[in-house]
């Protein structure tokens, strides 16, 4: 019974495919999975948009939208209809083909990244041996679409915004990769299924998730920072900041193309949260072994939505960083710490068993973090101040 609930989508797929002749069955199976993903993730996108607006509202002591549907649940649909009915303006001097292709490229690429994520037990669309590599390849392609958008608009402000965006995304690719390399090193495989399987073991009821190790926690924090920068979310949303010079690389987009950029950004957030969940939070495995009766795909989606909540929380609190400050942060702070993290991960594995290795590794990481923070802030003369009063 529990196993049926867990594998319900797999069983459904097999049953539907059994109606077709054997030669067509593999193709049909893949197509069905694709349909599933294309149906589920935009729904999650709508849910994420709703959560963002209500969540930000509550943090600001107000209700979010609550007129359209119960609790405003149909608001994303209303927004979608609105964006469909707007006039699609393409600037006369713009490169029309590239201008059209940019949002399409973005959406296609983020959906392809989802193809390798293990959404549940036996529920990976494409089970590759080098799934992680494929995901990063797709993730890097999103930068292409940003540049296409900025270039094709023939607008110097869009180009400025696009260049800033691409520079930011490239800078944060390196910490993103380096923090995942630690996971790969410890698991010994690039395959996401094997990474989840390695975390799906329990000691005294507690799981072996990588986030519970000192190097895993550090890597997760750095992965989260890099993921926020990759998806252009606050506090790294300077390229699309409203109160900056212009609206950034999608200034010249209106109507449905703008909605596609929006969709691409949020589904990108969902997919990179999915990757973070797979690498550090154990993917579809349950937090306690006694909770193993809950289907695996529910755990996966719960963890992804929790990550989205954290994204929204951070957005509601923090002001954005300036361009040069965020690049400095990436290259001079996060990158050295990721390199140190690799060393610490290896150290933890080499030192055998015992609690002393945990203390040593944690101490090394904390010390390095504190030292670099102090040096960084001191160099820029930044720090809290005391004020004097006139006599």
């Amino acid at each position, binding site marked *: 019974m529990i196993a049926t609930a867990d594998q319900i989508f797999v069983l459904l797929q097999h049953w539907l495919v059994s109606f077709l002749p054997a030669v067509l069955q593999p193709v049909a199976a893949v197509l069905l999975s694709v349909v599933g993903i294309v149906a589920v993730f935009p729904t999650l996108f709508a849910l994420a948009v709703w959560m963002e607006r209500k969540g930000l509202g*509550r943090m600001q*002591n107000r209700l979010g939208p*609550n007129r359209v549907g119960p609790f405003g649940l149909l608001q994303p649909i209303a927004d979608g209809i609105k964006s469909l009915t707007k006039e699609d303006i393409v600037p006369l001097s713009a490169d029309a083909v590239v201008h059209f292709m940019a949002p399409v490229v973005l959406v296609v690429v983020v959906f392809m990244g989802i193809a390798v994520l293990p959404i549940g037990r036996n529920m990976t669309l494409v089970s590759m041996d080098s799934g992680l590599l494929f995901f990063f390849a797709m993730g890097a392609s999103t930068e292409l679409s940003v540049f296409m958008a900025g270039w094709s608009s023939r607008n110097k402000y869009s180009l400025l915004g696009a260049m800033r965006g691409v520079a930011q995304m490239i800078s944060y690719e390196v910490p993103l990769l380096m923090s995942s390399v630690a996971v790969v090193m410890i698991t010994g495989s690039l395959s996401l299924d094997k990474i989840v399987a390695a975390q799906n073991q329990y000691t005294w009821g507690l799981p072996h998730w990588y986030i519970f190790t000192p190097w895993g926690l550090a890597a997760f924090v750095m992965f989260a920072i890099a993921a926020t920068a990759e998806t252009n979310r606050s506090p790294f949303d300077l390229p699309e900041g409203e109160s900056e010079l212009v609206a950034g690389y999608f200034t010249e987009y209106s109507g449905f193309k703008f909605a596609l950029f929006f969709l691409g950004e949020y589904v990108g957030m969902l997919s990179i949260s999915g990757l973070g969940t797979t690498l550090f939070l154990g993917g579809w495995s349950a937090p306690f072994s006694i909770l193993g009766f809950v289907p695996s795909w529910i755990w996966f989606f719960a963890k992804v939505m929790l990550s989205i909540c954290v994204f929204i929380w951070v957005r509601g609190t923090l002001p954005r960083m300036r361009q040069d400050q965020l690049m400095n942060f990436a290259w001079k702070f996060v990158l050295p710490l990721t390199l140190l993290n690799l060393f610490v991960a290896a150290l933890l594995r080499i030192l055998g068993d015992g609690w002393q290795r945990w203390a040593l590794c944690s101490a090394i990481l904390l010390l390095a973090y504190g030292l670099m923070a102090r040096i960084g802030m001191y160099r820029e003369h930044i720090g809290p101040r005391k004020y004097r009063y006139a006599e």
Partner: protein
Amino acid sequence: MLGEGILKGLAETARNFAGSFVSADRLTTVQYPEQRIAPIEATRDFPFLVYDGADWEAGLRCVACQICEKECPPQCIYIVKSTDKKPDYVGKQQFYPARFDIDISVCMSCQICVEVCPFEAIKMDTEFELSTTDRFGGLLHDRKELAKSNEHYHKIHPTEALEVDARLAEEKAKTEAKAKAAAAKAAAPPGTAAAAPQKPVPAAPGETTA
């Protein structure tokens, strides 16, 4: 420690988020127009003319002295004095406004007209949902639209209305006392001087009318 300030900020927003579900202090909006915030008594929106009794034309307090028209800073009041007279609340014959228009698209609710009126005839209303589709005529209120009863005044500004009524009653009593004294003098030997014609005493300058 780097990151401590950020964590404190995150804690603050989390507190507001959680608090918005349980305490009214952390969720300060109402669902207008289904719910409305109770209006504050002293609030002022646009002027209206007060009339006593049931007939608005007979009971209108305004005597068309045109002081408010002169003092109005954006000059949004337009008055045309009548040619005949009608009795006011103490019985004296007074002019009345044949036309009294206020253009509320110009009026800035500064309340100077209320302050300078010697006859307690114009007061501030609390109605603000006055939007109309007629951009010019719909926002020009004539004296029929502006005339509202004293009971309405009591409903929207109870404290003020009671003070105004007390003042007017006092004036009426004073006038009647003077009239009685004059009548008594007239009934006395006719050699004494005739009573001076009565003038309703305006509110003393500097005395504030809220």
